[in-house]
């Protein structure tokens, strides 16, 4: 802590609380309240970074987070703005983009080769021969950059907070806090966003009025809605307010002269903050360049801090009272010199090629600012040039949007406050919270808000002296490079932005927009007034990707028997958005239990719909190619749903549970889409039908296997005999004391009972089924066993064995199509498909050898791809690899031999058009 000024009231640091930073392996002591930037300045660190392209040394410039000069890697996170980042004990701080160190960066030689690197040089050089660029690009990339992306995953918790205030005030300066105080005082719910950590100004009034002030929170974008996005450390705020007040102030700007990027050249915000808040003297010999009284205030600050000060005032007749500071009137800084830090400046009248040399170690520009209108512009506000303010100011605001303070052109604190109060009152009135004295106060404030400030005098656009004069510090763009780009035809701000990347760097135009506009105007022969800023786009301030991503919530669906599966050590897998047991023990053993004894699987994830109404059957007849009008109550039909192009959408069971009521099941992953599909058609067709997705209302288990009936007899007093409950029947039945709907169907190819019951009985029913089946050797089975079992039966899985072109004829499901029906979805397309005949067919196959061709493997003919495997498994029951595959239609004959290829492995396969297991379905129907 080498250069702290004596303690005084109002400083931000706590001298009784020391913290220690690890700065590139060196211990740096700081005080609580310091920023990394102020701590390093106090420790005598002058060079805070190396520039993006030329590796020039850079130092603290703004101390407000508005420039790229102090971006550092802090605790592994790249591009942290050190000037605003609070110190924490033990934090690791490293400077970026230099080797071996920022202080001794060997890549500094690039600065002397800058003539070889004009704007867009990478579009022009190394492009011929073509092999050159791939070799050169990595080299260029290694020399430029902004820190290292951390390799470790970021597990820091992030929060997303949604707020809906009546009034949102962006900016907690004088205008913003005045607006908030008025709006909240009138009774409007009000939120204020302020990027600074420690609020200054009349925030107490705003808080006392009831405004919620979010400090250290930066708005970084305004989107449709309008939705305002803001970020604070670890939190993303999404704010939707009825009225928006933009009090974003202005951003201080530097001057353009040779070597205006040297460490020691800084804005008055940096000098003032270093002295007042952190008690660090920026230098011992200071030159202050200004054109208004703000510079005199800065000069006083520096002098009180013990520096020798020379004031350079652009005005020919400066104020008489300079408190004894030497004033050079009618002059500007023409150039700066120095190697690792500014050591002198040349001062003289604007445009002169000579000048007086003044030795100094700090150059401060004071009093030049540009309205911070980017966020406001994102609302669609229109800006136009204001001659007296020498700035682009808002002239047309969208409804419910207000602007106040520096962004609206206020040039005095009194005007800014009045504009803020006015905006707050108008916003409150806009949400129905007008105060009793509204009209009178509005009139009074309007008069004060219009108060004109001092005339604005900007520094010269450029100096006639030699040397690099930087317009854009982020991307190392000089006035000469802008001029070259304009000469190449990129003669507008938008084109210059794309070609030279000005305003596109980390500062997003905060530090360079004004200079770039003026230099563009100069190079194109246009005027500043005729050179509008570039389009404002988010993010206006940097935001971490993790903050943007917010929380990681993955909604997952689970059956009401999930805890039972977990207790049984099930391995879970994703099935759509469901978590389902993949297996409990060994899938082969589970298959064996189903084939030889009895198994139970949780099928709660099946989509389930209640379709009820006088036209329920007619609705389903139109929706499916199947016939349902003649379906008896208590019977189940296998339904295949098609879209209007005749493509298979889904399949499932359609159960008639009443004259005007059906219970329909669909596949797990399609439920939501089919609900939308059915609801959409129902809205169009003139059917008197009500549809309700009852998926979660019913838990479901399938009890399957040769001993399934025995287990069922222990579960119910009802008659479950083959005569009373034959295959493809359904009906109400009390199971384990619970009212259920039982379907006699069998996806796995065995005698099966699919029991649908009120889901909150899930644990009870699962336990009861296992208890009832225990004497018969029951075993729970998971999805893997189910897949093997259904493949042995050649039962398809829609979405796995079919795709967006699969029609029922090619999939071997043509038998469901009742084309004699007058109309149904897909009828017209199916007529065409039938006429043209199938191009390919979905067939079963067995393959020779022990290799199981993976799903997705190619079916090839003479080395050419002709089809694909959609499902495959090893069947212990049949002792072979088997599966389903799409093959050319002409091959769909039993025994046809074909070749399957995956990677370098081949197998010979044979077509099987009938189920491998129980081809006549006797077990299913037993």
């Amino acid at each position: 802590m080498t250069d702290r000024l004596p303690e005084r009231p109002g400083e931000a640091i706590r001298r009784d609380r020391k913290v220690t930073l690890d700065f590139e392996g060196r211990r740096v002591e700081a005080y609580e309240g310091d920023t990394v930037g102020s701590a390093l300045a106090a420790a005598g660190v002058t060079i805070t970074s190396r520039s993006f392209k030329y590796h020039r040394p850079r130092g603290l410039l703004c101390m407000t987070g508005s420039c790229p000069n102090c971006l550092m890697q802090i605790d592994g996170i790249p591009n942290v703005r050190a000037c605003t980042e609070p110190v924490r004990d033990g934090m690791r701080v490293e400077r970026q983009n230099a080797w071996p160190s920022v202080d001794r960066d060997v890549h500094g030689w690039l600065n002397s080769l800058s003539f070889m690197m004009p704007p867009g040089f990478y579009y022009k050089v190394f492009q011929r021969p073509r092999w050159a660029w791939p070799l050169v690009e990595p080299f260029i990339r290694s020399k430029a950059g902004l820190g290292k992306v951390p390799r470790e995953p970021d597990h820091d918790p992030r929060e997303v907070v949604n707020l809906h205030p009546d009034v949102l005030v962006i900016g907690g300066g004088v205008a913003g806090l005045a607006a908030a105080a008025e709006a909240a005082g009138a009774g409007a719910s009000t939120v204020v966003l302020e990027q600074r950590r420690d609020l200054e100004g009349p925030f107490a009034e705003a808080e006392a009025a009831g405004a919620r002030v979010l400090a250290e929170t930066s708005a970084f974008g305004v989107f449709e809605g309008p939705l305002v996005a803001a970020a604070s450390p670890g939190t993303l705020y999404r704010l939707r307010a009825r009225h928006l007040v933009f009090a974003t102030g202005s951003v201080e700007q530097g001057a353009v002269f040779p070597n205006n990027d040297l460490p020691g050249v800084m804005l008055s915000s940096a000098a003032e903050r270093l002295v007042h808040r952190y008690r660090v003297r920026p230098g011992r010999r200071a030159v202050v360049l200004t054109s208004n009284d703000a510079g005199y205030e800065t000069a006083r600050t520096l002098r009180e801090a013990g520096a020798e000060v020379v004031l350079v005032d652009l005005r020919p007749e400066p104020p008489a009272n300079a408190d004894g500071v030497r004033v050079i009137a009618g002059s500007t800084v023409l150039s700066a010199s120095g190697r690792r830090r500014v050591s002198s400046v040349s001062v003289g009248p604007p445009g002169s090629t000579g000048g007086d040399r003044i030795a100094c170690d700090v150059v401060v520009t004071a009093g030049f600012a540009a309205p911070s209108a980017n966020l406001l512009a994102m609302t669609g506000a229109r800006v136009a040039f204001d001659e007296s303010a020498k700035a682009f100011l808002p002239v047309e605001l969208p409804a419910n949007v207000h602007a106040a303070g520096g962004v609206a052109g206020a040039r005095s604190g009194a005007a800014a406050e009045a504009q803020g109060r006015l905006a707050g009152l108008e916003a409150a009135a806009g949400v129905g919270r007008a105060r009793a004295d509204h009209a009178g106060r509005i009139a009074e404030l309007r008069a004060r808000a219009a108060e004109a400030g001092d005339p604005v005098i900007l520094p010269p656009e450029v100096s006639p002296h030699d040397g690099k004069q930087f317009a854009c510090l982020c991307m190392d763009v000089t006035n000469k490079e802008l001029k070259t780009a304009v000469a190449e035809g990129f003669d507008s701000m938008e084109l210059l932005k794309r070609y030279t990347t000005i305003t596109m760097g980390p500062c997003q135009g905060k530090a360079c927009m004004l200079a770039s506009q003026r230099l563009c105007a100069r190079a194109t022969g246009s005027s500043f007034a005729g050179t509008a800023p570039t389009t404002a786009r988010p993010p206006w301030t940097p935001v971490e990707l993790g903050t943007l991503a917010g929380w990681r919530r993955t909604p997952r669906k689970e059956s009401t028997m999930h805890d039972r599966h977990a207790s049984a050590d099930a391995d879970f897998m994703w099935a759509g958005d469901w978590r389902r047991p993949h297996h409990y023990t060994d899938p082969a053993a589970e298959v064996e239990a189903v084939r030889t004894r009895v198994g139970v699987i949780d099928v709660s994830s099946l989509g389930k719909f209640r379709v009820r109404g006088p036209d329920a059957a007619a609705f389903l007849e139109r929706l499916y190619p199947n016939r349902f009008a003649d379906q008896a109550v208590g019977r189940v039909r296998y339904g295949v749903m098609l879209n209007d192009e005749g493509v298979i959408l889904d399949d499932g069971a359609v159960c008639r549970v009443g004259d005007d009521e059906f219970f329909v099941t669909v596949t797990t992953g399609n439920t939501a889409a089919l609900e939308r599909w059915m609801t959409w058609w129902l809205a169009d067709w003139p059917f008197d039908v009500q549809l309700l997705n009852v998926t979660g209302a019913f838990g479901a288990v399938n009890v399957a296997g040769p001993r399934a009936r025995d287990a069922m007899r222990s579960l119910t007093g009802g008659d479950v005999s083959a005569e009373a409950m034959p295959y493809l029947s359904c009906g109400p039945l009390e199971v384990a004391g619970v009212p259920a709907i039982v379907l006699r169907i069998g996806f796995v190819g065995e005698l099966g009972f699919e029991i649908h019951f009120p889901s909150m009985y899930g644990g009870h029913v699962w336990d009861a089924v296992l208890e009832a089946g225990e004497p018969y050797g029951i075993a729970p089975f998971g999805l893997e066993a189910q897949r093997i079992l259904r493949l042995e039966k050649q039962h398809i899985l829609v979405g796995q064995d079919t795709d967006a072109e699969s029609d029922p004829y090619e999939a071997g499901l043509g038998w469901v199509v009742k084309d004699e029906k007058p109309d149904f979805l897909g009828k017209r397309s199916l007529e065409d498909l039938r006429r043209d005949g199938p191009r390919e067919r979905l067939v079963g196959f067995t393959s020779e050898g022990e290799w199981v061709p993976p799903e997705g493997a190619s079916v090839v003919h003479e080395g050419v791809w002709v089809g694909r495997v959609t499902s495959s498994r090893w069947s212990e029951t049949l002792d072979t690899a088997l599966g389903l595959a799409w093959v050319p239609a002409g091959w769909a004959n039993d025994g046809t031999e074909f070749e399957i290829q995956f990677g370098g492995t081949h197998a010979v396969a044979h077509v099987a058009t009938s189920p491998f297991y129980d081809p006549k379905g006797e077990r299913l129907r037993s």
Partner: protein
Amino acid sequence: MRTATRRSPFADAQAALGAVVEPRGDWELVASYGDEDAERALLREAVAVADITCRAKVDVRGRVDAALAVAGDSFVARIAADWALVLGEPGDEASIASRLQAAARDDAMVTDVTHLYGGFALAGPGLPELLARLTSWDPASLAPGSATGAPIADVRMVLARRDLEVPVLEAYAATELSRYAWETILGVVRALGGGPVGWNALRSTGWR
């Protein structure tokens, strides 16, 4: 044969939190988590979540007015002109559904959806802060006593606002998403200094 018992889809998660379970008809409901006074304090001073899955829930769709006219003491969450959810005491769903269906005749489809939804009561003065972290939906858009559909914790839910002694929002999520929703909501409730409360503490707010 064991007695048929209904449990919330995340009953095991509640048991791990020390839930004190009481029978109510064939339901097992969580009466408390062991300290009802502390739970009442959470409701008065912070924010809490309670499992109200056992509530009777009857869905009415179509021309619903005649059916809703006989809802009696049940709370009617009118979500749309042609859709309402009628909420009653645990176990009352069958009687409510039959009464409503009789009144509706063929004008509306009345369905017992008690098992279709898991239910949560989010309550306490910290409710706005809780919702700010769970949804982009604006709670101020819902008047006390009314209902709507909106996402909470990225899950579509039916919401009913019940401002009683403390603000209460009833939220109903699909049963299959209930365990996820419980975990997510409880996580945020805890981060805000709140916790789970049982049926008894919730009743003390005047909630029925």
